[in-house]
C-alpha cells in the first residue's frame, strides 16, 4: 500500500473529533475502535464515546437503529470524547438525521450516497434528499458512493456481493485514515487475525481499506490532509483501554496482589457483561467465573466463595444490584469480603440499558434493609477502573466488608490511553487467615475484632479447631452466638457503622490553580472528564474555579468538610437528580448547588462551562 501523501496540502491541527455513524449492522463500533487504535499508535491523546442502541439489530435504516462511535484525539492531554464532532461519517440517511443537530456549522460530513435512496429517505421522514435541497449548506458535505465503490474495488476478488457490501466500513476507515494520516499496520494485523479462518474476507477488507485510502489520495473532493502531532504524555508504555476491560484487569491484578483465587459470580446484563467475558479468559490466574442462574445466585456463589477464602466478586448493573440487596446485607452481617461492581445505566427498571447515568448512588449507599453500611467507590475514567478495582478489593479484604464499585456506561465503554503500571508498583493487598484461637480461654471468638481495623477474624473452613457458625441473625459481640439482647444489638449496629467510617481512605485533593477560586465544583465518578475540561476552559479565560473529585463515596474523605467550608459556593454536577448533593447538604450543612442531567448522555464540557461561568460570575 502506498503511504505517500501525494500532492495534497497538509495542514496541522491540534485536535479533531470524528463521529462514525451508521446502522447497527454497519460495523461502526469496530470502525471507530480501529481508528482509535491507529490514533493511539501515533501517540495522540484520545478519548472515545460509543453510543449504540440496546437492540442488537433494530430495523435497518431507522433512527432507533443508529449506532455511533465518537473519537476525540489531540496533540495535548484531553479529558472528554469531545462535545461536537468536526467530522461526521454518515453511512445512511438515519445516521445523518440522528447526528446532524450535534454538528457545528462548517463541520465536514462524509455521506454514503448509495444509501440515500427514496426508500431509506422515507424511513426517516425525508421527503427530499437533504443532499439536494440545500439544507446542508452550512456544512462541508462530501458525497461518496461508499458501497458501490467498495463493491467495485472488490470485483476482481470474487467475494459474494453481500460480503463486499459489508466491507464498506473499511472503505470509510481507509478514507479517514488517509485524511488524518493514521498508521494502518495495526488494522491490517487486526483484519488478519479477526478473519483468520476466512482468507477471502481478509483480502476483501484489506482491499476495501486500500480503496478508501486511495480514493482520498486521488479525489479532488478532499484537497487537504491533516496531521495531529503526538501529545506530550508521561513517558512509558501505553495501551488504549475501555473501563470494562480495565476493571476486569484490575480484578485480575487484585487476585494476584492479594494472592487469593478470584471467584466471579455473574449474570449477563448490559453494560457489565464484558467484565464476565474478559475474566472468563484468565483461568490460568486461578480465576473461576460462574454464570449463575440469576443475579441472586451470582452474588450468593461469590459470597460462598469468600466464606471459603476466595476473593469473591459479582458484577452487574443497577437492576442486578436491586436483586442482590438481601445478600449484600448478609455479607454485612457476616463481615466477609465481597466486591460488588455496579456498571450503572439509565433507570428505573429496564430504563435505557446502553445509556449512562449515575443514579444508583442512593441505592449503593442506602439500598438495604436495616442499618447496613458498606464502602462505596467510583472510578473517574476508563483507565481508573483498573485502580478502583484494586482499591475495592483492598478495602473488602482488609476490613472484611462488601464494597460497591460504581462504574457507569460512560466509563465502561469509553476508552482512553492508559499508562501501563508494572505489577511491582501495585499495592500488596494480601491478608492473613486466622489459624488459631483468639479467646483467653483458648476459645475461638469469630466476632472479636482487630483493634486497628475493627475487622473480625477470617477463619476459613478447613482450619482445625476454629469450627464455628455464622449467620444473618444478630450475633453477640465477640462470640458470634445468636443474640436478641437489646444492648448487644445497639452495640453491634453502632459497631458496624463505626467500622465502615473508620476505613482509611485518601484525603480529597483540590485542584485550584491560583488559589483565588471562590467556587468549588465537586464531582464523583465518571463526570471527572467533562468537569475537568470545563474548569480548564474557565481558567484559560481567567475565571478562577476549584475542582475536587470524590472517588470514595463511603466513607467520605476525612477532610471533605474542611474543603467544602473553604469556598463561598459549592456546585455539584451529577447525572442524576442530586444524590450526592443531598448527602453533602445533609452531612455538612453546606448549601451546595446541584446541577443535574439525566438524558442518558454524559455532560458535555460546554454545558458545564456555561453553567459554571454563570456561577463564578454571578454567584
Amino acid at each position, binding site marked *: 500500500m502506498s503511504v505517500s501523501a501525494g500532492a495534497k496540502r497538509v495542514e496541522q491541527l491540534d485536535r479533531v473529533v470524528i463521529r462514525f455513524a451508521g446502522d447497527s449492522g454497519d460495523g461502526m463500533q469496530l470502525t471507530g475502535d480501529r481508528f482509535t487504535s491507529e490514533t493511539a499508535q501515533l501517540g495522540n491523546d484520545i478519548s472515545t464515546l460509543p453510543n449504540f442502541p440496546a437492540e442488537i439489530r433494530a430495523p435497518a435504516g431507522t433512527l432507533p437503529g443508529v449506532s455511533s462511535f465518537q473519537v476525540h484525539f489531540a496533540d495535548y492531554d484531553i479529558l472528554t470524547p469531545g462535545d461536537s464532532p468536526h467530522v461526521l461519517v454518515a453511512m445512511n440517511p438515519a445516521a445523518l438525521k440522528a447526528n446532524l443537530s450535534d454538528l457545528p456549522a462548517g463541520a465536514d460530513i462524509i455521506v454514503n450516497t448509495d444509501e440515500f435512496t427514496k426508500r431509506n429517505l422515507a424511513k426517516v421522514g425525508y421527503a427530499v434528499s437533504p443532499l439536494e435541497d440545500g439544507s446542508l449548506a452550512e456544512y462541508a458535505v462530501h458525497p461518496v458512493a461508499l458501497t458501490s465503490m467498495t463493491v467495485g474495488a472488490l470485483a476482481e476478488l470474487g467475494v459474494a456481493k453481500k460480503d463486499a457490501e459489508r466491507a464498506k466500513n473499511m472503505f470509510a476507515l481507509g478514507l479517514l485514515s488517509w485524511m488524518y494520516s493514521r498508521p494502518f499496520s495495526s488494522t491490517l494485523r487486526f483484519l488478519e487475525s479477526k478473519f483468520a479462518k476466512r482468507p477471502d474476507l481478509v483480502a476483501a477488507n484489506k482491499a476495501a481499506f486500500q480503496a478508501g485510502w486511495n480514493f482520498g489520495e486521488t479525489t479532488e473532493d478532499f484537497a487537504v490532509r491533516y496531521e495531529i502531532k503526538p501529545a506530550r504524555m508521561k513517558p512509558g508504555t*501505553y495501551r488504549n483501554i475501555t473501563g470494562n476491560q480495565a476493571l476486569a484487569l484490575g480484578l485480575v491484578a487484585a487476585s494476584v496482589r492479594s494472592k487469593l483465587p478470584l471467584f466471579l459470580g455473574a449474570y449477563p446484563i448490559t453494560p457489565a457483561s464484558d467484565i464476565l467475558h474478559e475474566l472468563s479468559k484468565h483461568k490460568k*490466574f486461578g480465576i473461576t467465573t460462574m454464570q449463575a442462574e440469576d443475579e441472586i445466585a451470582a452474588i*450468593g456463589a461469590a459470597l460462598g*466463595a469468600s*466464606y471459603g477464602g476466595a476473593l469473591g466478586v459479582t458484577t452487574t448493573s443497577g437492576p442486578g444490584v436491586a436483586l442482590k440487596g*438481601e445478600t449484600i446485607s448478609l455479607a454485612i452481617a457476616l463481615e466477609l469480603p465481597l466486591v460488588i461492581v455496579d456498571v450503572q445505566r439509565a433507570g428505573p427498571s429496564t430504563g435505557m440499558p446502553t445509556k449512562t447515568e449515575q443514579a444508583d448512588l442512593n441505592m449503593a449507599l442506602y439500598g438495604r434493609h436495616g442499618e447496613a453500611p458498606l464502602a462505596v467507590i467510583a472510578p473517574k475514567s476508563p483507565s481508573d477502573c483498573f485502580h478502583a478495582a484494586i482499591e475495592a478489593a483492598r478495602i473488602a479484604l482488609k476490613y472484611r466488608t462488601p464494597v460497591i464499585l460504581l462504574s457507569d456506561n460512560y466509563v465502561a465503554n469509553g476508552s482512553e490511553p492508559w499508562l501501563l503500571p508494572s505489577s511491582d508498583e501495585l499495592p500488596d493487598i494480601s491478608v492473613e487467615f486466622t489459624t488459631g484461637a483468639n479467646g483467653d480461654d483458648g476459645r475461638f471468638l469469630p466476632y472479636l475484632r482487630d483493634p486497628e481495623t475493627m475487622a473480625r477474624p477470617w477463619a476459613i*473452613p478447613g482450619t482445625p479447631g*476454629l469450627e464455628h*457458625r455464622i449467620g444473618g441473625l444478630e450475633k453477640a459481640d465477640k462470640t458470634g452466638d445468636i443474640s436478641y439482647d437489646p444492648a448487644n444489638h445497639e452495640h453491634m449496629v453502632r459497631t458496624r457503622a463505626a467500622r465502615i467510617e473508620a476505613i482509611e481512605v485518601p484525603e480529597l485533593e483540590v485542584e485550584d490553580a491560583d488559589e483565588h477560586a471562590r467556587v468549588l465544583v465537586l464531582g464523583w465518578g465518571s463526570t471527572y472528564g467533562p468537569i475537568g475540561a470545563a474548569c480548564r476552559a474557565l481558567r484559560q479565560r481567567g475565571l478562577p474555579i476549584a475542582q475536587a473529585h470524590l472517588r470514595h463515596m463511603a466513607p467520605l474523605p476525612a477532610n471533605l468538610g474542611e474543603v467544602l467550608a473553604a469556598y463561598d459556593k459549592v456546585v455539584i454536577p451529577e447525572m442524576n437528580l442530586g444524590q450526592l448533593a443531598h448527602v453533602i447538604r445533609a452531612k455538612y450543612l453546606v448549601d451546595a448547588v446541584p446541577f443535574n442531567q439525566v438524558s442518558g448522555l454524559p455532560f458535555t464540557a460546554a454545558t458545564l462551562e456555561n453553567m459554571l461561568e454563570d456561577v463564578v460570575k454571578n454567584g
Partner: protein
Amino acid sequence: MASPTVELKLTAKDFKSDQEVRWCPGCGDYSILAAMQRFMPELGIPRENIVFVSGIGCSSRFPYYMNTYGMHSIHGRAPAIATGLSVSRPDLSVWVVTGDGDALSIGGNHLIHALRRNVNLKILLFNNRIYGLTKGQYSPTSELGKITKSTPAGSADSPFNPISLALGAEATFVARTIDSDAKHLQSVMRAAAEHQGSAFVEIYQNCNIFNDGAFELIKDPSSRDDHLIRLEQGQPITFGAEKQFSVTHPAGSFGLKVEEGGEALVHDATVDDPAYAFALSRLSGSDLGTTPIGVFRNVQRPSYDELITKQLVDAKSQADGTADEMLDALLNKADTWTIM
C-alpha cells in the same frame, strides 16, 4: 473431588455444638439432628472440612447445632451460596439443610440449577408440608385444599412432588426418608455422602405444632405396612404385611402400578433413564397412599466442581511465570506504544 478421609476417633458427641437447641419440643428435627450427629463420625472426614449451609426456616437452624463449620444464610439461597463454596473449595464436604418453603418456594430456582449442574452438595430437604417459623401458612408441598391461616377456604395451589421435581431438574441422586426411622435415615445419608455430585434427600418431617401427623399414615404401625414402600437396590419392590403388594410395570403403560400379586419390578436406582425413577416418584401423591422411600435414582455424571476444577488445572498448567510476571504480560497484551 472427595474430602480427604482419615482414621478419626470421633463420636456423635464431637458433632454437638455448645448451642442450646431451640426447636419446639417434639419436633421431628430433633431426630434428624441426632441421626446426623451419629452418622457424621462414619464419614471419616475431619470436622473442620465439613460445612453446613442453610437458608431460613425451622430446619435452617440446623447448622448452629453441628460442631462443624456452618452458615445460616438467607431465605432460599443456601444452594447458591453452597455452590460458590463447593466449587472454590473442592476439598470440603458441603451439606445444605433446607425446608419445603425454603427450597421449593423462595429458593426453587437455586435448587433446580444446583441439581442440573450436579454441584457436589448433599441437600437435605426437611419436608413438613407447612410453614412453621412463620406460624402455619401452607407450603408448596401442602395438599390441595389445605386449610391454614392464609387459606381459610382451602389452598388452591397444587403441590410439588419434590422427588419428581428433583428428577426433572436432572438430579443424579434422589432419595426420600422419614424423620422417625433413624436407621433408614442414616442409610440414606450414607448413600448420599458417598455420591459424587448433587445428592437430593427429601426427609418427611413432622411439625407437631402446625401440621401434626402429616405423615402418620406411613408412620403408624397399624397402617404403614400397607402404604410404605421400601426401595432396596436389587430387590423386588413389594410391600404389605405379607408382602402381598407388588409394584409392576404393565405392558403398554408409561407408568408403574401397584397390584396384589403380580410380577414385582426389581429396583435398580442406577438405571440411566430417569423415566423409571420418575414413574416411581408418581406412585405417591399428597395422600401418601403408596409412598416409596429409599434411593430412587443414583447415577454418575461429572460434577460441576470436577469440570470447573479441571478447567482451572488445565489453564494453570499453561502458566508461564510467576503471577506477577503473568500479570505484566497480560497488561501488555494489546497494541501498545511507548513514549520516551
